Each structure stands twice: as C-alpha cells, then as structure tokens.
C-alpha cells in the first residue's frame, strides 16, 4: 500500500476540514447504513457528513453541496475475511426541490482485513508459526454513486434515506489489484433537528 500517499491525503483533508468555517449543527449529519459486498457479505457503515460548500440554486431551489463524509465500515465475508474500511470521502450531492438526492463521491480509503481462519506462517526452520489476527492493509481508492430522498423537504421529517454503490480497487492484491463492490443503504439524520 502507498501509505505515504494515504497519510498525505488524510492530512490534507483534515487541514481543509479545520480551516473551513463550520456549518450549523443541523447541516451536519450522521449516516448509518448497511454495508456489504453482497447481501451475504454483510456489514455496517457509520459516517459523519460535514458540508464544505452548500448552495441553493434560485431557479429551481435545488441544493448543491460538497460534503466531507469520513466513515468507517466493517463487513464480514464468511469464511474468508472481516474487512474494515476507513474512508475520508469527498462527495458532491444534489438535492432536488422535491427531496430527491443524487451523489457521487471519491475516497482514498484505507482497507484492513483480517483472515477468517487460523493462520500459520512457514518459519525459517520449515515449521509453522501461528499468526494471530492475521491480515493485511491495503489502499482502496473508491468511486461511489448514489441516490436517495430527503424526507425533511416534503414530509417534514428530519431524516433521509440513501443507497450507494461503491466501486473499490484494492491495491495491492497478490501481484496486481482487485475490484470490489460495496452496497451501502442507510439513513442520514441531522445532528440537531432543523
């Protein structure tokens, strides 16, 4: 994994986050979602949504936002591995006047997986050494696209639902890379009611 690259990106995002004036607490949201490669590789994702730039278009009242959504996902691929994904995601989100949302995101994620079985490493003498919590770290650049609905706009409920498809590339994987898909379906809730 290109750890230097990951650290540099993380620090840059943190600097942007600290430097920008904070939005109202009502604009910050918490995301809680099902996260999994498929329905059988189940998991959970939690993310904090922080609007960096937010504009409402006068013509059609559509709201356009650039969001910083740092999140942590964990999922279980049974008998294969348990994966943890730390994603400092940057996203663009458009909310229409009827509450429909569309978003695209980019993330330089960090992936840590734990092998789902007892791991034995061949030692220098040709014997075996047990490796506890065996697994590896990897760089996981991610592109995501999603849609949803903000229920606060028409139904006056401070809640939104969303669904997202994450396309992730694990680097390294064996001698090359591995594409992974992640399905994310969940809710967004403001930290403070509007």
């Amino acid at each position, binding site marked *: 994994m290109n750890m230097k690259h990951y650290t540099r990106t993380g620090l840059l995002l943190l600097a942007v986050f600290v430097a920008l004036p904070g939005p109202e607490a009502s604009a910050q949201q918490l995301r809680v979602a099902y996260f999994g490669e498929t329905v059988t590789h189940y998991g959970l994702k939690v993310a904090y949504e922080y609007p960096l730039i937010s504009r409402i278009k006068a013509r059609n009242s559509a709201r356009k936002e650039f969001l910083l959504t740092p999140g942590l996902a964990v999922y279980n691929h049974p008998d294969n591995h348990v994966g943890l994904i730390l994603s400092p995601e940057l996203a663009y989100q458009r909310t229409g006047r009827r509450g429909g949302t569309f978003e695209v995101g980019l993330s330089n994620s960090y992936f840590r997986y734990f092998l789902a079985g007892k791991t034995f490493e*061949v030692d220098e003498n040709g014997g075996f050494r047990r490796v506890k919590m065996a697994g590896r770290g990897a760089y996981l650049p991610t592109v995501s696209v999603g849609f949803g609905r903000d229920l606060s706009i028409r139904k006056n409920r401070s809640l939104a639902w969303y669904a997202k498809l994450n396309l992730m590339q694990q680097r390294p994987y064996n001698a090359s890379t591995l594409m992974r898909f992640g399905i994310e379906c969940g809710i967004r809730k403001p*930290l403070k009611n509007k």
Partner: protein
Amino acid sequence: MWYSQTLEKQMKTLYKYLFLLVAVSLIACEKDDATTTDRTLYLRHKGADMPIWVRGNLASNKLVLFLHGGPGDCAMCYRHYLKGLENDVAVAYWDQRIAGSSSGKVDVKTLTYEQFGEDAYYVVKLLKEQYPNTQIYLVAHSFGVELAWQFLTTNDNQKLVSGLIAVNGTFSTYRWLVQMREWVLREARRQNNTAIEQYVQARPVTAENLGTYEWPELYKRMLDLDGNPVSIYDDKKFVINYLFASPNTALAQFSHPKAYSEYGETTIRGYDRSAFLKNIQIPVALFWGKKDGVVPIEIGYETRDLLTKTAPTFVTFDQSYHEPFISETDRFVAEVLKFVR
C-alpha cells in the same frame, strides 16, 4: 464545529457494535467436533495467504486434498460438485498462490513448479499436524495433476500421502502438446475442418521447437473443435452458489490471469516429470473424461505406462470432457470414495 455531545454518544454506541461485529465474525469461523469439521485455515508462505477450507466427515480418518487446476483456478468453487464426498470423508479445498481466494502480496517470480510443489508440501504438512491420525489422499485436476507430480516426485514427499487420483492432467508439457495436436488433427479431419487441419499439419510439435511453439493458438483451435464445451457458468445453480453462498472472492478470478503471462510464455514449457514417474509407489488412479481435447486420454495412457512401480487403476468417464466431476458428478464422487476406501 467539532462533534457535538450527541454525536459523540451515538458514535460510541455504534463503535461498540462495530467492535462486537468484528469480534463475533472472527470467533465464529470454526466448528469442529468428533465427527465433522468445518474449519478454515490459512497458510502464509512467501507472500501468499492461501486458504484451506476443511469440510466433511472426520470420523473416517480420511481426508481428500483437492488440488485445483488452472493455474489460477479455485478449489472451493468446485465444492458445489464435490460436496457429496463430505458425507464419507473430509475434504480440504486449498486455493493455491495467486488463485481462487488467495491473497497477500505475491511476486510473480514465485509462480514456478518448484514453488507450487513447496506450497503443496507445507499444505500437506499443516494438514497432518492439524489432523494427526488422518490419511491424506490427493485428488488433482488438470494443472493440479502437474503440481501433484511435482510434489510427489520431490524428495520423499510421496510418503506423506496415501494415494493420488489424477484427473485429466499431464506429467509433461511436451507430451501434452504432442497429444493435443494429435487430437486436434483427428477432430479437424472428422469434422471436415480443412483450415484447422492444414494449420496443424504445418506445425508439428518437436522437442526442438517446444520453446517457441505457439501453443495458445493450438489450444484455441482445440476449443474451436469442441475440445471442452462444458462451462461451469452455464450451470445457474453453480453461479448462484459461487456468488452468494460460498467463501470465494468472486471477482478475484478476473485478477489472476495477468499474473501468469510469464508462466505461460516460459515456465510451462520446461515442465517434464516423465523421468520421475517410475519412482512413484503409492496407489494411483487415473480418472479421465474420454471426450477431453484439453488433455486427451492418450496422456492418461502414457501416464499409466510410466508408473511402473505401482498399479494404477484407470477410470474413464465416457460422457465427460475436461471436468468429469461437473458432467458426471455422482459417478465421480462414487469412484473417489471407492478409491479412498
């Protein structure tokens, strides 16, 4: 602008659940009792983390280690067809390096027969340590047969296992190409395909041109003549099981082939264990899909003739091509059980 108290509280609760989920998932991966096993082991060696899924009947004290083909194919994906064995014996499904669900950070320079043989040695050794009173039998398919001969004809490795079932696989790349060319020529004439017939006639395989012979072109023509029309992806039950109910890393199969270019260009051409087969003394069975064009049955006959210190049994599957366990599953399972009993 930082986290509000509410957020902190919510996050703490959620992190607790996340931690719990990780812990439960890691703990819940093993089930073993006196009669059955459902364990996942990993062998870490020279950059590769190779899974070995052990399933089935432990009370039998017999364990079948499946050596998959490819190279770069998968073992656990074929459980769909081999599961019938698990009522009577235990089965170990091992994904080789840069194959199936194996992961890690692996140098392509390790994709050599010597390394595959060494990996097999450690897999067998690990299984013997984990299941000390169990007899191990190898069921090897296609490239897995090449790997099996490499393993068995190195040092005293054959003493570690109780027998080998070799399924549609070769002992020598040269002999394989000679016999595949013969098969293609025969089929081209039978099917009146003059274009392929002329192509093959103009390109004999010799020991001298082995290093440069364009074998992928010959292979392509063999497939054109229906040398192996069976595709696991036509079996919807298999595909659903593969995607949703098996521990396979589904998309990894698209990632592996690019690692094998050097193997296909060079390494494969140097493979020849024919001089060593006379040293094999353990029981051997040769299982062959009779209609196979990938590794024609004539290779099976040559293998039988080279095994002079054992008396191999020869089992033909008349309706099968390269994977008799797919096209004649029940009979395949029955024949394996007959051999290991």
